[in-house]
C-alpha cells in the first residue's frame, strides 16, 4: 500500500499496456519505453479471454497477447523480467485471480503478485460489493486495490468504494468503456467534485489521446491521468505494419513524454485552491 507516493509531487502519468502484446519480448521493450518516457505507475494488463469491460482496441490487444501465449504464470515471469523503476499495477479480470488458487480464492494470486513486485490491482469486473476477499488478501500482502468510479456511481456506492479503495482511485471520465473518442469530457470536473473528500489520489482515464487532453484533465483537478487506448493503438499499428520493436518502442516513449509533459503543464494551470 504505497501507490499514493507516485502522485505525491506532481501529476502522475499512468499508462496501460496489455502484457505480452503483440508478443512477450516486444512487450517487455514497450513497457520499459513507457518507464523511460516518464510513467509514474504502469498498469499492466493480464489478458482474460472474456474482456467484457474493454473497448475494441484493448480487446484486440488481449487477443494478440493470448494468441502469443500469455498466461498468469507467464505474466509473473514478465513482471520479474521487466527492468523498470516504476510501481506496477496488474489490471485483470476476477476469474484469473480467483482461479489461480484452484478455486481457493484470491489469496494465492495476490501472494504471487506481491512476490514478483506488483503493488496493486485494478479489476474491472469486481465491484465493491464482491471485493471483500480480494481486499482482504491485498491487505495481507500490502497491496493496493484500486476501484473505478464511474459517472453513474453515486450515493451509497461512493461511500462503500471510498472505504475499500487504496493507492489511487480510477476516475472514469465519462460513460463508456475504455475508448477512443477524441473529446475530453467536461464532466471530469464534476466527477472529481463528487469524490473531493476522498483522501486517495484521483487518476482520470477514458479517452485521453494526447498532451493537450492530459493538460486539460489535470487542469480540471486530476492528480493523474490514465492512458490506455492511445498507447495500444501504437502497438497495434506497429504490429500491423511489421515495424521493428525498437521503432515502436521509440514511438511509445515519445507519446509517453508528450502525455507526461501535458500533465505537468496542466498542473501549472491549475487554479489554486481557495482557503487551504
Amino acid at each position, binding site marked *: 500500500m504505497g501507490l499514493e507516493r507516485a502522485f505525491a509531487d506532481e501529476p502522475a502519468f499512468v499508462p496501460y499496456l496489455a502484457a505480452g502484446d503483440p508478443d512477450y519480448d516486444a512487450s517487455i521493450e514497450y513497457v520499459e519505453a513507457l518507464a523511460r518516457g516518464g510513467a509514474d505507475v504502469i498498469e499492466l494488463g493480464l489478458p*482474460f*479471454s*472474456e*474482456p*467484457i*469491460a*474493454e*473497448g*475494441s482496441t484493448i*480487446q*484486440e490487444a488481449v*487477443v494478440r497477447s*493470448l494468441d502469443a501465449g500469455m*498466461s*498468469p*504464470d507467464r505474466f509473473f515471469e514478465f513482471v520479474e523480467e521487466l527492468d523498470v523503476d516504476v510501481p506496477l499495477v496488474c489490471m485483470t*479480470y*476476477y*476469474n*484469473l*485471480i*480467483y*482461479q*489461480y488458487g*484452484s*478455486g481457493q480464492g484470491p489469496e494465492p494470486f495476490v501472494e504471487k503478485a506481491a512476490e514478483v513486485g506488483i503493488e496493486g490491482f485494478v479489476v*474491472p*469486473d*469486481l*465491484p465493491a*460489493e*464482491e471485493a471483500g476477499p480480494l481486499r482482504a488478501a491485498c491487505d495481507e500482502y500490502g497491496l493496493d486495490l484500486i*476501484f*473505478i*468510479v*464511474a*459517472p*453513474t*456511481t*453515486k450515493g451509497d*456506492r461512493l461511500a462503500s*468504494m471510498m472505504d475499500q479503495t487504496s493507492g489511487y482511485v480510477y476516475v*472514469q471520465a465519462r*460513460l*463508456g*468503456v475504455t475508448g477512443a473518442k477524441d473529446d475530453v469530457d467536461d464532466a471530469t470536473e464534476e466527477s472529481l467534485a463528487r469524490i473531493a473528500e476522498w483522501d486517495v489520489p484521483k487518476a482520470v482515464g477514458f479517452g485521453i489521446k494526447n498532451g493537450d487532453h492530459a493538460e486539460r484533465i489535470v487542469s480540471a483537478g486530476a492528480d493523474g491521468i490514465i492512458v490506455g487506448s492511445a498507447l495500444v493503438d501504437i502497438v497495434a499499428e506497429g504490429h500491423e505494419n511489421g515495424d521493428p520493436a525498437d521503432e515502436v518502442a521509440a514511438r511509445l516513449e515519445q507519446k509517453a513524454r508528450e502525455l507526461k509533459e501535458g500533465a505537468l503543464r496542466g498542473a501549472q494551470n491549475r487554479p489554486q485552491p481557495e482557503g487551504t
Partner: protein
Amino acid sequence: SKFGDYGGQFVPEALMPAIEELTDAYERYVIDNEDGFMDEFRRRLADFGGRPLPLQRADQLSARYDTEVYLKREDLLHGGAHKLNNALGQVLLAKYMGKERIIAETGAGQHGTATAMAAAHLDMPCEIYMGETDIARQRPNVFRMRINDAEVNPVTTGRGTLKEAISETMRDWATTVETTHYVIGSIVGPAPFPAMVRDFQSVISEEAREQIQEQTGGLPDAVLACAGGGSNTMGAFHHFVPDDDVDLYAVEAGGSSLSVDEEEGVAPNSASLSTGDEGVLHGARTKLLQDSDGQIMESHSVSAGLDYAGVGPELAHLVDEGRVTPVNVDDDTALEAFHRLSQDEGIIPALETAHAFGYLERVAGPATDDRAAEPRDEHHDELGDTVIVNVSGRGDKDLETVIEETQKRDLDIAPDMSIFNEIGGGI
C-alpha cells in the same frame, strides 16, 4: 442475489447503477406486480405468445419406452421457442422502467429474434449485436430480426461469435445505461438477471405442473430439459423444485467428447454442469468450462443454442445441492433423437431440445450393444412411470445443420436424402 455461493454481480462499475435500478424494478414489477405488470405480462404471453401451451402425451414414445411421456410444447410459442417468455418480459419491464431502447446480443440468433419480435410488438427500438461469423452462419435468423425492424450490428472483433457480441453489447450498455435496457437471453449474467429470467420462464413449469395433475392426477416422476445457459431448464424445473419426489434432469451437450484439449483451450462439449468448475463469467460466479489458468474454453455442440461455456448460477447451485441431476448426451445421440421425435411424433424439435430426448432414449430405450448390461426394465427405477420432457423449441432453424451433420455420420435412423442431390437448388 446469490444462489448458495453462485451468482453475484461481477460487472464494471459503470453498469452497477443500472443493475441496481433493474433490481429495484424487478422487485417492484415482477415480484410485487406493481402497476399490474405481471398481469399485463401474462396477458401478452397469452394473446401474443399463444400461452398456455399444451402438455401433450407422446403416444409413440410412451409405447417405445413403456413410460408415460408428456411433452411440454414450448416449440409452439410465438417465434418457435421458449425464448419469447423472457424477451417479452424484459422488454415490457424496460417499458415500465421508462427505457427507450433495447439491446441484446445473440449467437445462434434465437434470442435475437425473440427480442426483436417482442420489441416490435411493444414498439421499442431494438439493436441486436451479432458476430459477423454468426451472421454468415445464421442468415435466416438475421433476416427475421431485420424484418422485425431491429438493427443488427455486426461485431467484427475477435472471431466474430457470441463472446465478442456479448462484450460489444456490454460496451453499448456501459455507454447508454440511462436510456437502454440490455435483454440478457438466459438465466446468466449479474443479479437480478438469473432470478428474473427464471421467473419469466417459470410459466413453463407453472403450466406443466397443473396440466400433468389434470391429466394424470399426480406429479411426474421426472422432468427432463436440455441445458445450455439454462433458461428453458429452470423454466421447466422451477415449480417442481419443492416437489422432492420429482427428479429433475438437466441434459447438457456432451458434444463430441467430454474430455478437454487444454493445449487448444477447447472443450469439445458444453457440459459445464457435468464437467465444469466454479469461476466467474459474464457477471456471475457459476460453473464453467475453463482451463487451469481460469481462461474460458471454447465450448462445442452440434446445437448452437447449447454452445456456451457457462450455465446459470441457480442451476449450478441446485446441482451442488443434489436437487438437479446433470447428465449429458453427445452430438450423435442428439441427432438420432432429433430424427426419432420427428418421425415418431411429427414434431421436429430444435437440436437443443433433441438432447433431452437423447437422454430419454439412452436411459429407457431398447437395449443396444452399449446398453446390453442394463436390462430394459431398470429405467423405471431411474425415470419412473411418468416423465415430462420440455420441448424447448422447434427445429426449422436447424434443418441445414441436421442434414449436413447427419450425412457426415450415416445414422441408421436418418431419412435418405440422396434423392434431392439430383434435383437442383440450395437449401
